[in-house]
């Protein structure tokens, strides 16, 4: 049963991901990206990580994609604009993607890539959010604080660059 759902979610995710890069209208590809993100969120639920699934929906589907759609609409990106900027690299890029895909397929098929089980048991995972929160504020307190600096720099940088543009 679980495997069936996994295959449904992953097939929909792959199909929508292909549609993201192949449709011409940027708004449509943004919408397909939302479908792709939702499938990934569903897979997180299958992996017993409801917190990650919720975050995936809130942040990626909610905040990031809305911003993305806003940007597309405000900048009024025309159709096929993306294709113009590809130059002649699409063949090379496609070839590289196929090579990478075959390497990944070969490794998975041979059983070279097997994921070892994590440190958390099913019972520990029931308190998913609690586990993440506790880890974030104890073991990962140092990188957590550094991330706040990164956000500060990003905020200052975004404002600075936009305001300079306005001055000119």
């Amino acid at each position, binding site marked *: 049963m679980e495997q069936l759902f996994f295959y449904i979610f992953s097939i929909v995710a792959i199909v929508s991901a292909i549609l993201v890069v192949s449709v011409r209208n940027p708004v449509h590809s943004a919408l397909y990206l939302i479908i792709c993100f939702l499938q990934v969120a569903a897979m997180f639920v299958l992996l017993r990580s409801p917190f990650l699934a919720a975050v995936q929906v809130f942040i990626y589907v909610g905040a990031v994609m809305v911003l993305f759609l806003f940007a597309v609409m405000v900048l009024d990106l025309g159709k096929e604009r993306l294709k113009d900027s590809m130059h002649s690299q699409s063949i090379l890029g496609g070839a590289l993607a196929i090579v990478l895909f075959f390497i990944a397929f070969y490794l998975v098929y041979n059983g070279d890539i097997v994921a070892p089980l994590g440190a958390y048991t099913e019972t520990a995972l029931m308190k998913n959010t609690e586990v993440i929160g506790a880890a974030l504020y104890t073991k990962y307190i140092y990188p957590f604080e550094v991330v706040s600096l990164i956000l500060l*720099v990003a905020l200052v*940088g975004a404002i600075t660059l936009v305001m300079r543009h306005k001055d000119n």
Partner: protein
Amino acid sequence: MNLASLNINIYSLLPLLMVVGLALFVLVLDFFIPRGGKRALGYVSALGLVCILPFVPMFIETVPSYAGFVIADTYSAFFNVVFLVSSAFAIFISIDYLRRLGSESGEYYYIMLFATAGMMIMASANDLIGLYVGLELMSMSFYILVALRPGKGAEGALKYFVLGAMSSGILLYGISFAYGFSGTTNVNEMAAIVYRLPDNNTYLYLALALIGAGFAFKIAAFPFHVWSPDAYEGAPTPVTALLSVGSKAAAFAVFLRVFAVALPAFHGQWSDMLWVISAATMIFGSVVAIPQKNIIRMLAYSSIAHAGVILMGIVVNSSAGASAVLYYSLVYAFMNVGAFTVAALASRGDGGEQLTDLRGLASRRPWLAFFMALFMVSLAGIPPTAGFMAKFFVLASAVHAGYYWLAVIAVISTAIALFFYARVIFYMYMRDYEGAELPERSLFTCVTYGVVLILTAVGTLALGVYPSAILDIAVRAVGPLFTI
């Protein structure tokens, strides 16, 4: 997890906290200073860094703190000194550079300080996640700094940002594989687990290749170098100086720590990969620097070639090689910041730093030409300058470990590189002066640049004539890496 096992130790982070505190202080001060007086922030930042410098060697903690995320050992202290010195120099020359560019701003200075803080986080990172957040803090600051030059900055910043973001993705992908095979991101725990792994572990190979590629992007090694000439050319020249010295040194610090501490058991595998990258980088940087017309682009390719040479010290994976990497980083900080200072000063103000601008410089500005010649000689690796000693130590460690072919390639690339360094000296001394008179410099300009040039020149010469003092410190600094 109880709190005691986290080993919260404020002293291990004190130099870093001081730099972050300085940055926040400058950020707040920025609100109270009127538009015309932003240069005061530059003095506060540069002098603040100089004041923090003596504290760095005072707080050495050999035990990892913050749940194993931070290690403030002698190794990270050495690199912190390199970062603080090069950052103080870069901020000092920025003060006049920004005034001439007409884009004085307070943000510039504190983002520069945040970049320095990011480098310090990288050098003292004992965990792949800690390393990554430090790298992001540094890169994020540099993306903004590169874009701060009016006109050309945007193009360089965009290229740097897109490729930098991609390289961060590759690095994270590699880190995820490393977590996959070891179940930990801590460098020491990984070292203990890696010994028990079978030889042909696919996860490990993927992790090695991806982490290696991610770091190679940051040190601008061939074939991951494409962003560097454009970013260097587009950035304000003092930022370029810090980008080529500080960010590279930080990347080498984590490169060495991850490969030498966490994965020494697989030295056979990763040294082959880095051997090829190192050799290709040296040859490519030296050859492509020759046709460059722009002095910043030439220095960018020269910087690529130097990264290849420094990489040799990591390939060797011995105490001698690692200490040569540290020594080289310090020497490179002096000579490259010096070279960029002259480039910033010699540009005619129209935005381009063409090599032909230097024609006949010796007749108009004899001291400036002399300093430039000294830095070029040092970058080329000619005795008695520090550039020679740095190259010598790296080559000696490679020969000692039996990497004869790599050493031969390094010598050949150095010989090729001599051509374009010598051409700069040729332009300055053998050609007649052309074009408009150089604008008169105010006394203020002369003093600020003079201080930086004299200090970098003294560093370049002193480290070359009497290298043993610093080399001893470097050998002791890499001690913690090779005892476990």
